[in-house]
């Protein structure tokens, strides 16, 4: 295994907290002095609505120096490729501005995903591009992956190109497919709350990853769980619902028990260490939340620490 090319892939259903956990994980490593690159496939405005790193320079100066959030826009990547192929700027611009080219990119199935993967692989292998010859220097690479359906579609795009084309794109696809189907390169961190839909989707995703790409979950991050999810059986038995118990307590107990059942089911469905991140109670701002969440994430690119 070449740990140098390992990507921590934070994946799961939409809205389960992938971006928050990616940033929390990145912040934690960066704060320990490691250089961290977080690759996001979200468009910038969407990333901004998730969580913000505002104020990081004053609060975590060490992390601020080491943390880089990179947004790989496939359109920009294509632009770079055009510019490489046509060094005369006017020609490159004419192509980029032509409606034919724009439309081809929009309608070419999987093309944007394909270029995204190509760039991610370059980053993982620490190769520069023609435009930026220096290879980025980092210790930890985190991919804040898109929601599971689109995440799988992205991984499949390499295969699609390999399958229905011949020539240079097909061989690039084959090479990419080999890279991303290698568990030595992909540390899969699946995020899910203990809720029916998210669990079903996570299980399906995990099966697809295994079947299609020979990738297995390295860890399950159970996000936003209640205090009951981590309590012992003995502790839970101490709580007794009475006639006059408040609706709030009934709801919390009901939910907690449900979560415990789900957690047990999940450990049968997916063999991977489970890391619980509680729904954080009080937090002032986003940075506060990220550093609190980070306390629960004992994950390095080499291994996942068992949770006490």
């Amino acid at each position, binding site marked *: 295994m070449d740990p140098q090319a390992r990507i921590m892939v934070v994946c799961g259903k939409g809205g389960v907290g992938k971006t928050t956990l990616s940033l929390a994980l990145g912040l934690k490593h960066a704060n320990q002095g490691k250089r961290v690159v977080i690759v996001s496939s979200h468009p910038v405005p969407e990333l901004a609505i998730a969580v913000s790193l505002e104020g990081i320079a004053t609060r975590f100066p060490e992390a601020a120096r080491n943390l880089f959030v990179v947004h790989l826009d496939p359109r920009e990547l294509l632009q770079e490729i055009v510019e490489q192929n046509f060094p005369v700027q006017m020609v490159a611009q004419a192509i980029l501005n032509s409606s034919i080219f724009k439309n*081809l990119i929009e309608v070419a199935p999987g093309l944007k995903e394909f270029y995204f993967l190509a760039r991610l692989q370059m980053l993982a292998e620490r190769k520069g591009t023609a435009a930026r010859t220096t290879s980025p220097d980092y210790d930890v690479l985190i991919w804040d992956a898109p929601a599971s359906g689109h995440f799988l579609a992205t991984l499949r795009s390499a295969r699609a190109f390999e399958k229905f084309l011949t020539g240079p*794109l097909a061989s690039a696809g084959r090479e990419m497919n080999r890279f991303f189907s290698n568990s030595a390169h992909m540390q899969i961190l699946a995020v899910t709350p203990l809720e029916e839909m998210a669990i079903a989707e996570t299980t399906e995703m995990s099966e697809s990853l295994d079947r299609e790409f020979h990738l297995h979950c390295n860890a399950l991050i159970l996000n936003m769980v209640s205090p009951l999810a981590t309590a012992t059986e003995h502790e839970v038995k101490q709580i007794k619902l009475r006639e006059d118990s*408040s609706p709030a*307590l009934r709801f919390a107990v009901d939910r907690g028990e449900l979560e415990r059942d789900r957690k047990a089911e999940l450990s049968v469905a997916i063999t991977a260490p489970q890391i619980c991140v509680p*729904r954080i109670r009080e937090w002032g701002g986003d940075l506060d939340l990220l550093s609190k969440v980070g306390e629960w994430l004992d994950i390095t690119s080499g291994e996942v620490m068992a949770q006490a």
Partner: protein
Amino acid sequence: MRIIVYLGTGGVGKTSVAASTAMAVAKTGARAMVLTTDPALRLRTALGLVEGVPEQRVPLDDPKAGELWAGLLDVRATLNEAVRLYAKPEMRERILKHSIYETIANSLAGMQELMAIERIDQLRLRGFDTIIVDTAPSRHAFEILDKPALFADFSSSRKVKLVGRTYKFAAGLGLNFIGSKALDIYSRAESILGVNLVREILDFYSIFYPIAEGYARRAEKTVALLRDPAVTEFRVVTTPQKAMRDAAFFTEALAERNFAIGTFCVNRAWLHPFPDTLPGGLEGELLRWYKSVSDSHREAVWQLREKFGSVVRDIQVFSELERDVDGLAALERLAVQMHLNEPAIVP
């Protein structure tokens, strides 16, 4: 006719809210269809949507109720149907067997939204009173508005058609006969994207464009309906935790496209009555934890009303159910919390 389009980020319960809206509408005596992309297994079972069944009438045990229908947005099925309806018989097989068609039908992001537009048109012709659309999460939410225009642009662009036709014509003659400016760009695109890919795409569009053109015409009509506030209401589903950020994001994103949000639906709120005194131990810890989450929910709803109350017509809050939304009973519990706004009056 009425259309309600639900937008929202992932995990907010958009599909449940959309399905229960359809139920609430049907209970007023109307014929309602909810179009959804990927319902949870139990919701799917409750609605009777199984693999290969694109739509299903859901029985309601209320004699005064109209009809509740649930439809799955199956890209392949809708696309196949369009090819069956609109392609010349001799072209059908070529289109259906084309490698680009295969890929488009299987994977193209945003295709679901294009197909939603196509389905709305089909449903309108079949006499549905109310169509409720559950869109994909935010990443592609706006494709329902953006993609048809893009697609129409593509299929009506003379240059592309020229290339498409020229290519078809030239395939037998050899490409060196063509020297137009369009072809120049096309061949440059070829050198970047790979010859085969570009040819496959152009070849596909040369046989597919009559369908694309027809699609574009129908899409134009449907998008006009989506633009008409007397017909269409946009609703954003969010959770208390995400409410302020979602509100800001969706208000701006819709305004950019000249649409207005009708309603914010704040789903999954924890607002249960809370005891005056707290016990010790895990029970106390659990209650304190519940209260802190609940307080932040109340605060978020208050902030949303303060800041966006005058921007939208309505803000509705739905409490989280004890168990995950399960079956029609759960949809009913959501439906009773909901009020249906009449379409906006257009001056």
